[in-house]
């Protein structure tokens, strides 16, 4: 014996409530299965409710005239036979034309189902292997049947595993993933793996030379080859052995420029202090516009010479950790003041050791100011990926031809190395001559822009 409660059913078209009009039975009455026990009113019609069980009416839960929500109990019946054995009541639903209808949502806070212990992977999966599997395996396995494990096996090697952001980092640092061993799950190459393999931690303030203890023999000092130095060396080797380089020289009487600098500085804005380097940089940008072939690179893989429309001007900078070449992006769009400010900023960050990887990327042509070391000229080595590099010597007072006589003048030597695949001698010479002409007589710019 058990008391069951019968809830108000949905009587059509998703009604949410009905009025209980009248009871056809009273408490204590015996009812048969499907016997009509009540009349309820829907929007239009009077509907008879058949009893779902045979038994005795235990309680009438609703007064006649009351509007009842679908799903609310209306009558309790003491069920007399085994067919009414206790069962879990299905949750009330608003029936629709074609089925049970959507379940009535509980208004409590949504919650996840309780989960048991999450199963770990049953068999540890081997890290990415480059060993070939027997050829028979690949041929025999029918394509239809699922593989036993998630790892495919085949006779060919696989790419090193990594994520796109880490791949990008590796590309930026020039790290080859095939040579890195991954410490991540399933042999994945992680960001740390790449950083370890490539540049040392940028945050480290200790110069790498001091990081690695120098071993000292009797007549020699052995300094381990560190990240930056190694990278620089690799770049130079790559440059030297890929691009055929030639150098042209031009010595210029820059006295007019030197004399102009005072005026220029007086007129400078935003605290800029243009010097010879800024002027040379400006002159270079103007000259690039006249010989655009110099601002380019040889792309062997794609089979093209890429000629850039903007000048991202690299400035070779010597730092404690070694030689780096940060660049001023779109230098050709900068005024002399802004150029001077950018150059000053660039050298300040380089000295502080805080140059970002972004600043080191994307250069198109470079100036190497060897003059600060007191030398006249040099044969600079191209930065890989560029077609020209201009070395700037020291400004020295020298006897020079001036107005038909010998006079002491401020003299400067420019040295231009260029990639002879991209630039021919005439172009290089023209380019260099333009820069020289501007430095010799700045007013000549009026004919060049």
């Amino acid at each position: 014996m058990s008391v069951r409660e019968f809830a108000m059913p949905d009587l059509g078209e998703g009604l949410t409530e009905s009025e209980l009009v009248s009871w056809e039975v009273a408490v204590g009455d015996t009812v048969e299965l499907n016997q009509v026990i009540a009349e309820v009113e829907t929007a239009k019609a009077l509907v008879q409710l058949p009893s779902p069980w045979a038994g005795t009416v235990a309680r009438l839960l609703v007064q006649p005239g009351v509007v009842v929500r679908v799903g609310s109990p209306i009558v309790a019946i003491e069920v007399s036979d085994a067919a009414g054995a206790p069962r879990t009541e299905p949750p009330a639903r608003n029936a629709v034309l074609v089925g049970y209808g959507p379940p009535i949502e509980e208004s409590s806070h949504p919650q996840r189902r309780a989960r048991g212990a999450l199963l770990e992977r049953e068999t540890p999966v081997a890290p990415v292997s480059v060993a070939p599997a027997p050829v028979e395996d690949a041929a025999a396995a029918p394509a239809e049947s699922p593989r036993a494990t998630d790892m495919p096996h085949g006779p060919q090697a696989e790419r090193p595993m990594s994520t796109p952001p880490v791949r990008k980092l590796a590309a930026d640092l020039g790290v080859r993933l095939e040579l890195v061993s991954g410490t991540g799950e399933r042999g994945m190459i992680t960001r740390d793996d790449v950083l370890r393999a490539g540049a040392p931690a940028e945050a480290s303030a200790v110069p790498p030379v001091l990081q690695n203890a120098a071993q000292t023999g009797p007549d020699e000092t052995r300094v381990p080859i560190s990240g930056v130095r190694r990278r620089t060396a690799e770049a130079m080797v790559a440059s030297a052995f890929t691009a055929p380089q030639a150098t042209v020289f031009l010595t210029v009487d820059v006295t007019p420029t030197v004399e102009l600098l005072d005026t220029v500085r007086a007129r400078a804005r935003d605290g800029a202090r243009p010097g010879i380097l800024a002027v040379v940089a400006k002159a270079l940008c103007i000259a690039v516009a006249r010989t655009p072939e110099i601002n380019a690179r040889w792309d062997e893989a794609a089979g093209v010479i890429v000629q850039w429309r903007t000048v991202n001007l690299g400035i070779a900078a010597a730092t404690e950790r070694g030689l780096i070449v940060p660049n001023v992006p779109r230098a050709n769009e900068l005024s002399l003041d802004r150029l001077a400010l950018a150059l000053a900023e660039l050298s300040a960050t380089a000295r502080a050791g805080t140059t970002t990887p972004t600043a080191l990327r994307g250069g198109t042509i470079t100036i190497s100011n060897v003059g600060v070391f007191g030398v006249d000229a040099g044969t600079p080595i191209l930065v890989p990926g560029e077609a020209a590099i201009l070395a700037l010597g020291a400004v020295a007072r020298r006897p020079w031809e001036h107005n038909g006589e010998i006079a002491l003048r401020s003299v400067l030597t420019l040295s231009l190395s260029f990639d002879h695949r991209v630039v021919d001698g005439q172009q290089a010479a023209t380019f260099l001559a333009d820069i020289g002409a501007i430095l010799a007589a700045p007013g000549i710019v009026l004919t060049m822009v």
Partner: protein
Amino acid sequence: MTELTLAKAINLGLRRALESDDRVLLIGEDIGKLGGVFRVTDGLQADFGVRRVIDAPLAESAIIGTAVGLAFRGFRPVCEIQFDGFIYPGFDQIVAQVAKLHYRTSGNVRVPITIRVPFGGGIGAVEHHSESPEAYFTHTSGLRVVSCSNPQDAYAMVRQAIASDDPVLFFEPKRRYWATGEVDENAVAPPLGSAHIVREGSDVTLVAYGPLVTTARDAALAALDDGTSIEVIDLRSLSPVDFDTVEASVRKTGRLVVAHEAQHFGGVGAEVAASITERCFFHLEAPPVRVTGFDTPYPAAKLERHFLPDLDRILDAVDRVMGRTNSLSSLEVTA
């Protein structure tokens, strides 16, 4: 071993099917006396009679629905829908009945129906005769969907499709009907659901099916000129897709390009790209790229060469996954 056109290879496959199982019958418009508008059923009614090669009244829904009734009776009907663009009147019978009957009847009723459909463009046709509707059917569970690209596969796969106890949508690349190739009736056929590596390579995995397999192969040959090694995979089966073969290839190359004539959004290429990204994320050097028809209705004949992926568009996509300058370089935001 004989050299046959793709159309004749299918004809031979149908002939062998009719010979080997007398429950096989063909039904479609103009397949009897005329031998089909592409002559794929040429000569079959003459040899097998009007009860086995049935010219149907002009009603695609009825072609399919009648085949369902025949399947109930234990036949193996092979329906022909005359052109891809005419499959839609029969769409309801295909997705609501053919696809669901086995499931609905808990496996009691088998539906060994093959629905042959010439598909794809490149034949300079008027509207509705150049469609690629395969994605509607790969999206419908209960159907198998395949597409042959060459005469050998055309012969073997049509026989396998007919022999399968499942319903099969058999898409025939109509612009390749006249392409010739060796057909060896005794060759052991690979499973119907398997993909085929058409040519091996190491730099890029190029996946195609149906009419574009030839184009993909041509692209791979042309790419040798700039030193790029492309592995070409003929998917062959679009439901199920042999992801294992594609996965193994992309784990090797790290780059995926998928090409199909069908429209871009929600095409088979989207499924392949998503699934391979899930499976090969940590091996990918570049995001997968799809080379497809535009998201427009199939255009007029004079414009179709822009709509259809060709060798150059495929190689442009290859450039993209190789990280080289490509048609989209100037459009991309620089990082």
